[in-house]
C-alpha cells in the first residue's frame, strides 16, 4: 500500500535514526533497509535522503567517515550519543502522537 508522502515527512528523521541505531550504514544501504523493514511501504525518493543526513550531521546527531568497500569509497553514517538521545525522545513523541491519532480515529474519549 502506498502511503501519503505527507504522513511520512514528519517521521523520516525518526526512521533514519532508528536504522542507524544498530549499525553504521551508507546511503543506498539505508534506502534498501528502509524498504525491506517496512515491506516496501516506505520508499523515499533517494536523493532526498541526503539533505536529511547532512542536516543530522550538522546537528551532530550522526557522524560520517569514509570507508572503502568493494573498491569504492563510501560515506558511512553512524549515530552519536546525542543522536541516540534524540532517537529516544522522538520515539516517545511518536508513541504519544500515534496514541492520540488512534484515540481520535477510533472514537475514544477521555470524558
Amino acid at each position, binding site marked *: 500500500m502506498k502511503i501519503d508522502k505527507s504522513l511520512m515527512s514528519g517521521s523520516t528523521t525518526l526512521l533514519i535514526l532508528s536504522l542507524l541505531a544498530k549499525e553504521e550504514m551508507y546511503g543506498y544501504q539505508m*534506502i534498501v533497509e528502509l524498504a525491506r523493514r517496512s515491506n516496501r511501504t516506505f520508499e523515499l525518493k*533517494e*536523493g*532526498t535522503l*541526503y*539533505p536529511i543526513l*547532512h542536516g543530522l550531521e550538522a546537528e551532530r546527531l550522526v557522524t560520517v567517515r569514509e570507508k572503502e568497500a568493494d573498491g*569504492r569509497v*563510501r560515506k558511512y553514517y553512524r549515530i552519536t550519543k546525542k543522536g541516540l538521545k534524540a532517537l529516544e525522545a522522538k520515539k516517545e513523541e511518536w508513541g504519544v502522537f500515534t496514541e492520540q491519532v488512534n484515540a481520535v480515529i477510533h472514537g475514544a474519549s477521555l470524558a
Partner: protein
Amino acid sequence: MRDDFQIWVDAVCEQVRFRPDRKGIEKELRIHYEDHCKALERLGYEGPLAAERSLRAMGNAQEVGRALDGVHKPWLGWLWEFSRWMVRGLAMLLVMTMLWSVDWDILIKCTRDELAWEEPPPGTARVELEHGTLWAAPGDVTQDPDGTTVAEIDLWLQRRDPLGTDSTEHYYSSWNEFFTYRDEQGELTVRVVDERTRMSARSRYWRSKYSEERTGWTRCQKTVELVLDGPPRWAEVSYPLSGRDWVLRVEWEVEP
C-alpha cells in the same frame, strides 16, 4: 556529452550556493546512483534500463538541490572555511615561532657532543648523584714555561634526565663551576682563563680547560687543570654546596 545522471546532478548542485561543498555532494550522489544501478543489474536489468530506473528513483533535482542548499548554508560554510584557515595559520605561526626561538647552534653542538661521548676508563673513581653519575680520573701532568706544574683531572657526568637541573649542576653548560679541588696543601682557588691573570698568578689554582669541554644532552665531559707548585700526588673533588657528603679522589702515579 553529459550523461543523464550528470545533467541531474548538475541541476542539484546549481541549487547549492556554497560552491566548495558541491564536489562532495556530487560524489556522494553519484556513488548512490551507481550502487542502485549495480543492484538492478544484479537482478537482471539491462544497463540502460537500470540507469533509467535508478535516475528516476533519485527524485526531483530542484527539490533535492533546494533541500541541500538549506543545510549547506553559505554563511555557515564560509565561517567554517575561515575558522579552518585560522587554525592552520595559528598552527603555522606557532611552529615558526618555535623554530625561530630554537638556538640551532646549541642544538647541533649538544647532539654532536652527545654522540662523541667516551666511556670513562675502567676503575675510574665515581659517585652516584641524585640525577646522574660523576667520574673523575687523573690526566696528563706538564710543566708550564713559568715553572709551575699543570695537572689535568678528567671529569665525566652522565645525567639520567636530559637537561636535568640537579642541584649539583646548576646549568648544563657550567655543571662543575662550583666544584672544589684540594690536594695535600689544601684547597685550590678558581681562576678563569685569562692571559693577564695567568701571567700574574704564580700557582695553586684551578681552571677549566675549555678546549676539552663537551656538553651533550645527557653526557658531559670536561678537563680541569690544577696549577701547582710541584708534581701532584693526589687531589680531591667535591661539592660542599650540595648538602651531600661526597668526595672523589684521584691519584697520580709518582715517578720513581
